[in-house]
């Protein structure tokens, strides 16, 4: 009969346009529907995906791509150069790395239906890495008419060329999304690795269920009503471990991490000493223990701003972050002349993880002598509050907690925090010329060793001015039924290559 | 019209609750009722009339403790019969209508249904036949446009009509006894006359015995063959109606008769009143319960309980000083008697 894979993913699929939101569920699901020109394999090397062969001209300015044969959109039309050019152009407008790349791009040129050229103004070593970027916003290929959607509108038709087809008429937002196998998909010959290699749909149908209650989801997995859970809360792993026919594993070797973000424009955090006092006030150990107890397999203490396990890992200037010293923090505060101004912490209470993290944060800050205004709110309020640059009276803020995946943070190219762009920077708005210069140099650099050196300098500077405070890294642990096989390790939860046994 | 006692009640008592808070609502009530006759039970509110009637019907709930030396319907004892037998007797052998026709009919069912139900509970007849009989009964009780009113709900009927429907329901199975608990108190005088007339007519027609409960001495004068006067749970005087009205043998009866304003006299004099209040019967009263209000009371009345004693043919009274009063009163003529002889 028909094989159906039922998965419980984290978060709900609220919309479908992967260039309209940075949300991970949308990114993950988009991978089933849309394909990319390039992709990274398990070792983070860029591999061609839709592209069959490509050439780079000697001056490094002209890239010529030829699409593989047999690529078709879900509506039956063939994938063409024009489609891909339009898709890349849209991405250049939406993504921040795309924005950097746009500065180098001179023009595109469709050679024929299957071949097109990208001509740069000057050589840029990150071109293929950018096109093979695997986290939001991913440069997915869409049919030209969808890719021509203006950047201020979202795509509402899930027509791609990927291994699965989304059944939009069966979509129940907030509850269920259905994908069926794309019978016309032509996979690559190489075995699947990371986001690269053969994307073979081995089940007929995927039902992605949104289950707001974790305990119910785990019980449903135990009862065999679903096959896969994307995120098993650490404390609930004993329930899974007790089941012989369930597997529990972290698919993403990098994992994700937690960051404490401080608002550089807001007194007292406009004083670098006060920000450094926060570094001293917090303890990664405390954060991880609060969330994971003694389950050491779930987390990793890490001093790196560009992620432990990534190519630019470093421990430069991380002593303050790695030591817990409330007394020293207090001294620093005194030195900085902290006057007890209440620190407004945006504390969302409707997501357990962030709720707990904020609870720990608030307690740690108080211990170090900060006065804290612990503001309970829902996520929607927190997301909009953090965009507010005004004073606290005007609805502004001092600190919040957030998390990013390793794939996004591991490179200065995609790590949003490591800029000093003032108003143009990410929330927190750090303003630092030195960091800006280092970043520009990173993009200019042509060889990997040079990039690495610059990245280390960036971390040292970042730690100094406290662009953000890295808390521990942790691993998203998935659980699935032993009926499933072929689940691949990847930073993104994808379900090609997965098959389901009948019994 | 002499028959064997159809209903024989001896030494009936009903108590609510127990211990010091117990309410002795009826104490040592005895009476008999013969076929075709009308016995009126008179007394002021709370004197235990309804309690007595409900005890006869076996309708008291678990809160009530009913005891009787004898409680027999046509020779069959009603004490300790099975609930099934009791249900079979109710409505068939002995029926009851209640004071308030507004609340005694179930507002959720049609008149026709309720009458037919009474029939079908006791006789194996089909729906249509029961309905025909119900219609018959409605015509019998002179409800105008009976066919239409068969399907009327109680609320659409006037008080008098409802009471007629109640009578029709009570008499649907031609019971031997009809107990009517203040059937006209809630009605206007004109309608009261209609209902009393109806009961009398049907009684004659069906040879039913009627136990009529009332507090209105006028109704007694209109209807009764026999009268039993109750006070504080006890029968204080009993006898044929005419004799009792002529010469009340108990001061309470006497007082009641005198307290009724009489329109025919049209004299703006003070009425003769019985001082004080009707008592609650929640404790054993030493002596005569009426003594505190009795103008003729002597100290002895507060000490000894009077017993109901026969005084003449069919008459009985429970007054310790009856003989003395009789003597005192020689020559003294009661207003109502004077009236009649005027």
């Amino acid at each position, binding site marked *: 009969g028909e094989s159906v894979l039922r998965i419980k993913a984290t978060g709900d699929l609220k919309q479908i346009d992967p260039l309209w939101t940075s949300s991970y569920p949308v990114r993950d699901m988009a991978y089933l529907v849309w394909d990319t020109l390039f992709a990274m394999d398990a070792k983070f090397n860029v591999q061609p995906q839709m592209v069959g062969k490509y050439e780079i001209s000697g001056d490094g300015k002209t890239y010529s791509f030829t699409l593989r044969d047999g690529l078709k959109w879900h509506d039956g039309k063939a994938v063409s150069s024009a489609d891909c050019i339009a898709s890349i152009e849209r991405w250049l407008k939406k993504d921040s790395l795309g924005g950097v790349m746009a500065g180098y791009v001179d023009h595109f040129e469709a050679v024929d239906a299957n071949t097109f050229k990208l001509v740069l103004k000057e050589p840029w070593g990150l071109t293929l890495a950018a096109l093979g970027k695997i986290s939001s916003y991913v440069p997915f290929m869409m049919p030209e008419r969808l890719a021509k959607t203006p950047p201020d509108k979202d795509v509402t038709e899930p027509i791609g060329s990927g291994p699965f087809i989304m059944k939009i008429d069966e979509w129940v937002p907030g509850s269920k999304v259905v994908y069926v196998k794309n019978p016309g998909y032509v996979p690559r010959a190489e075995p699947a690795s990371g986001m690269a290699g053969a994307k073979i749909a081995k089940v007929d149908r995927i039902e992605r269920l949104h289950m707001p209650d974790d305990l119910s989801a785990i019980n449903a997995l135990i009862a065999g009503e679903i096959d896969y859970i994307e995120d098993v809360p650490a404390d609930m792993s004993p329930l899974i471990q007790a089941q012989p026919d369930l597997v529990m594993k972290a698919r993403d070797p990098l994992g994700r991490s937690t960051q404490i973000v401080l608002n550089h424009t807001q007194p007292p955090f406009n004083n670098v000493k006060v920000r450094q006092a926060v570094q001293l006030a917090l303890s990664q150990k405390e954060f991880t223990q609060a969330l994971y107890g003694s389950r050491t397999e779930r987390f990793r203490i890490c001093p790196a701003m560009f992620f432990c396990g990534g190519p630019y890992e470093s421990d430069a200037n991380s002593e303050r972050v790695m030591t817990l010293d409330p007394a020293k923090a207090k001294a620093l505060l005194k030195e900085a002349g902290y006057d007890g101004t209440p620190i407004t912490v945006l504390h969302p209470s409707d997501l357990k993880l962030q709720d707990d993290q904020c609870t720990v944060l608030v307690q740690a800050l108080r211990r170090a002598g900060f006065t804290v205004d612990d503001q309970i709110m829902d996520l929607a309020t927190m997301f909009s509050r953090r965009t507010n640059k005004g004073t606290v009276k005007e609805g502004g803020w001092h600190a919040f907690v957030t998390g990013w995946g390793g794939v996004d943070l591991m490179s200065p190219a995609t790590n949003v925090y490591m800029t000093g762009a003032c108003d143009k920077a990410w929330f927190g708005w750090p303003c630092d010329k030195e960091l800006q210069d280092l970043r520009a140099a990173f993009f200019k650099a042509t060889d990997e060793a040079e990039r690495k050196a610059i990245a280390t300098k960036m971390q040292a500077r970042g730690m100094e001015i406290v662009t953000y405070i890295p808390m521990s890294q942790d691993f998203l642990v998935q659980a699935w039924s032993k009926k499933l096989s072929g689940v691949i390790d990847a930073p993104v939860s994808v379900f090609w290559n997965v098959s389901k046994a009948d019994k | 019209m002499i028959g064997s006692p159809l209903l024989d009640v001896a030494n009936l008592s009903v108590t609510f609750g127990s211990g010091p808070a117990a309410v002795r609502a009826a104490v040592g009530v005895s009476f008999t009722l013969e076929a075709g006759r009308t016995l009126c039970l008179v007394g002021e509110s709370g004197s235990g009339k309804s309690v007595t009637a409900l005890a006869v019907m076996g309708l008291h709930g678990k809160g009530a403790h009913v005891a009787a030396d004898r409680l027999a319907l046509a020779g069959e004892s009603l004490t300790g019969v099975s609930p099934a037998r009791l249900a079979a007797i109710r409505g068939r052998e002995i029926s009851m209508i209640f004071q308030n026709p507004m609340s005694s009919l179930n507002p959720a069912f049609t008149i026709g249904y309720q009458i037919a139900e009474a029939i079908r509970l006791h006789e194996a007849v089909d729906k249509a036949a029961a309905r025909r009989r119900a219609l018959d009964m409605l015509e019998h009780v002179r409800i105008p446009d009976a066919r239409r009113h068969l399907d009327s709900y109680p609320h659409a009927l006037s008080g008098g009509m409802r009471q007629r429907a109640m009578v029709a329901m009570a008499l649907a199975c031609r019971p031997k006894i009809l107990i009517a608990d203040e059937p006209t108190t809630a009605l206007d005088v004109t309608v009261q006359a209609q209902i009393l007339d109806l009961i009398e007519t049907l009684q004659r027609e069906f040879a039913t015995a009627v136990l009529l409960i009332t507090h209105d001495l006028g109704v007694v004068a209109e209807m*009764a063959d026999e009268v039993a006067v109750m006070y504080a749970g006890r029968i204080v005087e009993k006898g044929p*109606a005419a004799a009792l009205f002529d010469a009340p043998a108990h001061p309470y009866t006497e007082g009641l008769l005198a307290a009724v*304003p009489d329109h025919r006299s049209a004299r703006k004099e003070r009425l003769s009143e019985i001082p004080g209040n009707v008592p609650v019967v929640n404790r054993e009263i030493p002596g005569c319960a009426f003594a505190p209000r009795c103008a003729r009371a002597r100290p002895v009345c507060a000490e000894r309980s009077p017993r109901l004693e026969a005084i003449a043919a069919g008459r009985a009274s429970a007054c310790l000083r009856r003989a003395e009063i009789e003597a005192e009163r020689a020559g003294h003529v009661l207003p109502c008697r004077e009236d009649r002889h005027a």
Partner: protein
Amino acid sequence: MPEAVAVLEVEDVVRHYGPPRRPVRAVDGISLTIRPGETVALVGESGCGKSTLARVILRLEPPTHGRIRLDGEDITELSGAALRDRRRLAQMVFQDPYASLDPRMTVEAIVREPLDNYRVGAPEERRICVAALLRRVGLVEEFAERFPHELSGGQRQRVGIARALALQPKIIIADEPVSALDVSIRAQVINLLMDIQRELGVAMLFVSHDIGVVAHLSHRICVMYLGRMMETGPTETIIRRPQHPYTRALLDAIPVSHPSLRRPRRLLEGTPPSPSNPPQGCRFHPRCGFAQACCRSAMPELRSLGGGTSVACHLAPLADASSTQGDHVQ
């Protein structure tokens, strides 16, 4: 009767309920005068509009039409403070002695309330005043601290009377004050009302459906049927020589007072029609044994027959002996 200015004059009062298109004609054109010291009785079957008239007189609800003069002053249009000020002249005694006393107030508070409202005397004096009022209605002082549920029906009605007397009204409107009482208690309350009336010279409108009671204490009787006045006159005359067939029927329906007086019943068939759909012509004609063609078409007006009697019947005066029982004329 002293010929003073009337305490109460009711002139062609109409009170309708519900939609103007098809109203419930609860009171439909009643005129009435009560002089000081006089007791006027209002009798009629249930639903004929007696209580409605009483409420309208006290301006507890506005009349649809007509005038009401209290102690010479027109109160029809009054409202607010002015109305409250006049209202003290007319006080009411209610039918249900249970429902008409606030269960959460002591007897003292109940009787004192009108005194407080009109600031009669100094606050300390009111206490003495209440005690005096209670004594007047035959309640000993200890009752002052009791709550209504601790009183018997007769005692409650006495409290109601004391409250009505508190403001020394010129007229007391008693709406069936004794019909909820036991026979023995009824006599007590009737006596009390009569005593008070005699002593204080207060006028009284006594509403009742019991013509027996009414005959006992009233000077004049008004007979109502379906919102209309059928007959009015001195009590003596009405009782002995009723002119309206309805008055006769009411008298006929009174039970006899002795078994030996039983007689064939003369029943008034049927019940009063609905006041929302009164019959054409004489309101009483569908139930009237004497009804003629004219009774069905024309509504009879109230006509004076002399001797203070007025009747609303086309056929009055009726031939005497032919239709009435010996009882009525002794």
